[in-house]
């Protein structure tokens, strides 16, 4: 269906349009089995007459009235969101069933008064019952015949409040008209009852027609795409069928055991949709709260990553940018001299080119960080990479009188990775170690870079120093953006390192040394034959 794409997402959560999951189908089937089982259990005793139980009828009628009205209200609520006329028809059906139960119970002989209230005759109650019995399945049938909720045709385009008001008014008028007809025009009523507790042969037509309506509704609902509401309406129809079977076929007339059992099924039929709507609403609310929380968390995470990223771009790109501007200014000044010093101009221009390349590399690797998984990976020898990093830092280390130890495993599987990023991570870690060692005067300052195989399919790399280390509480916080222990640090370095290592499928963590700090990370070995990959 082409319109499904345009549907707002919230419709998917409504019981009238959300698809049935397996658990729901199982629950509906279990309830159905229970109802049939209960029918089988009551059937042998159905004819036992329970005289004097007429006083319970008002309670029953009240329960039916309340559940029908509540169901109608909830369905109207669904209609206002979904604007499906089918749902509004269903709501009208419930409203009608709820309203007509009032005159039905009031006129019922032996309930409020021996002859019933409102001056009803022998046929009044039966006539109202017949209209209820046929009207409700007719509404479900109408619901099943109308266009699916959520589809383009099944959406009410007009104003919602007036549609709701018109339906309620129509149902109200209909209920009043039926009651008035049954009470005031008793001469027009067919002879459905022969006595207060015994039905005539003509009455048999009513359950027969009702059974046909229920079966038609069942078939239509079954054949249609089954949403949650459809599924439970099928349960409602089944319990209505059982009710009819009990009342018309098995029971021994009014106030017999079978008759009361049938009434109970009627109550179940009335409350199934109410319970489903209520539980769906509760579940929906929980799900909604959870997804809002998840969305908020996600947005916060995205925001802080974005902030971190922009800060790191500003930090990294500004240096070459500033250097380019100054070099260009210098070149102009060398040119303006008389005679122009072309050697200096050339030197300045080539520095500009270098800075441009450097800025380009930073931008490229930042983009690569964003574009996780699509990064250019190449097979890398970890030891060569570590050696390269050590060589880069040798002068700085010597300047700070730090002894560097490289402890490399002899054979390591090659890893797949982005050499620029991994080098940045290592430089970050070594730079941190160096910074931590600046205040150390009572022992030989040392940094150790080590590699070791980690199991068969990974390499473990560690950078340790014997500086002051970090506090026990800071072990995980140091990886958070903007957390820093340096007087003018940005708090970006370790967060960047961790995101790079995790993008490589590895793990980065910090351990306290004795003394100092040790940062370790793993990199998964490149998949493929290990022996051939060595260069």
């Amino acid at each position: 269906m082409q319109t499904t794409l345009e549907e707002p997402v919230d419709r998917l959560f409504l019981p009238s349009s959300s698809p049935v999951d397996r658990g729901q189908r199982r629950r509906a089937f279990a309830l159905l089995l229970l109802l049939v089982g209960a029918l089988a259990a009551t059937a042998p005793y159905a004819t036992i007459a329970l005289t004097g139980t007429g006083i319970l009828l008002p309670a029953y009628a009240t329960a039916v009235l309340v559940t029908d009205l509540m169901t109608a209200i909830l369905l109207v609520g669904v209609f206002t969101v979904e604007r499906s006329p089918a749902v509004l028809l269903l709501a009208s059906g419930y409203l009608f069933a709820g309203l007509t139960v009032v005159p039905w119970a009031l006129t019922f002989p032996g309930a409020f008064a021996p002859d019933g209230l409102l001056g009803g005759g022998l046929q009044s109650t039966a006539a109202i019952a017949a209209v209820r019995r046929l009207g409700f399945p007719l509404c479900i049938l109408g619901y099943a015949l109308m266009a699916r909720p959520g589809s383009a045709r099944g959406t009410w385009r007009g104003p919602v409040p007036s549609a709701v008001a018109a339906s309620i008014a129509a149902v109200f008028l209909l209920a009043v008209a039926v009651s008035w007809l049954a009470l005031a025009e008793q001469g027009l009523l067919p002879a459905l009852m022969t006595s207060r507790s015994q039905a005539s042969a003509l009455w048999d037509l009513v359950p027969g027609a009702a059974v046909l309506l229920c079966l038609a509704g069942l078939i239509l609902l079954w054949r249609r795409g089954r949403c949650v509401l459809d599924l439970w309406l099928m349960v409602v129809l089944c319990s209505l069928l059982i009710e009819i079977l009990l009342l018309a076929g098995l029971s021994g007339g009014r106030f017999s055991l079978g008759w009361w059992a049938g009434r109970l099924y009627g109550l179940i039929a009335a409350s199934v949709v109410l319970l489903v709507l209520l539980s769906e609403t509760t579940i929906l609310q929980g799900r909604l709260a959870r997804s809002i929380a998840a969305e908020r968390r996600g947005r916060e995470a995205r925001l802080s990553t974005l902030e971190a990223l922009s800060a790191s771009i500003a930090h990294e790109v500004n240096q070459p940018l500033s250097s380019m501007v100054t070099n260009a200014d210098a070149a102009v000044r060398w040119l303006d001299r008389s005679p122009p010093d072309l050697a200096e101009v050339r030197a300045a221009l080539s520095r500009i080119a270098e800075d441009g390349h450097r800025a380009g590399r930073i931008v490229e690797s930042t983009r690569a960080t964003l574009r996780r998984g699509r990064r250019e990976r190449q097979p890398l020898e970890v030891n060569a990479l570590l050696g390269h990093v050590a060589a880069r830092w040798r002068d700085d280390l010597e300047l700070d009188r730090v002894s560097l130890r490289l402890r490399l495993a002899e054979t390591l599987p090659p890893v797949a990775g982005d050499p620029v990023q991994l080098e940045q991570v290592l430089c970050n870690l070594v730079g941190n170690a160096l910074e931590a060692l600046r205040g150390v005067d009572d022992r030989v300052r040392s940094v150790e870079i080590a590699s070791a195989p980690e199991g068969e399919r990974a390499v473990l790399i560690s950078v340790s120093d014997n500086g002051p280390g970090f506090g026990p509480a800071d072990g995980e916080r140091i990886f958070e953006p903007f957390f820093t222990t340096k007087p003018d640090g940005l708090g970006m370095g370790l967060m960047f390192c961790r995101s790079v290592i995790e993008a490589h499928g590895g793990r980065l963590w910090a351990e306290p040394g004795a003394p100092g700090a040790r940062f370790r990370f793993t990199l998964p070995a490149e998949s493929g034959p290990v022996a051939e990959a060595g260069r």
Partner: protein
Amino acid sequence: MNSDSTAVFVVDDDASVRHSLESLLRSVGHLVQSFESTEALLAAERPDLPACLVLDVRLRGRSGLEFVSDPSFAALALPVVFVTAHGDIPMSVTAMKAGAIEFLTKPFRDQDLLDAVHRGLALDRHRRAEASALAEIAAREATLTAREREVMALVAEGRLNKQIAAELGLSEMTVKVHRAQVMRKMQAGSLPELVRLADRLEAESRKA
């Protein structure tokens, strides 16, 4: 511009920024020495010339701001121009309070830097001239005898010869002779000039 008679020191941990600053400053005729850390600056042998320091705030070791509040910097007595990639207002306030000439955010206009450096150099030249003039006066004072110093101090206070003679228990004639000696040794052409010289020495000794 002022050629080899001035020096500019650049401290920035980014080599390419360092080289660009060096080139820019050399192009206008400054003698430039650049360092990657303040430690390297302190360890280096620096020419004895009017000088100015261009200092990055964010350095790998001690930051530029920490450095200027350190006693080792006070001994250098250099005017400082700060440059930084991320300047904020508190940072610039700290820098200006620490006596910076200027606080420039990268990338900056070359003229801004050159102007700031120029001001720094002028300041340092002035400071050096002051210092050497003072050293000269102090050298002259060193040639005075103890008695002559006493006489100079009283003369500077505005006492008459008669009063000085009474205070020191000398004859007025002897005071006159001492006074003439003081004028000659201090190379003062007039009494007001001698008073000025004595005041400067007095001010310097109070400062110390």
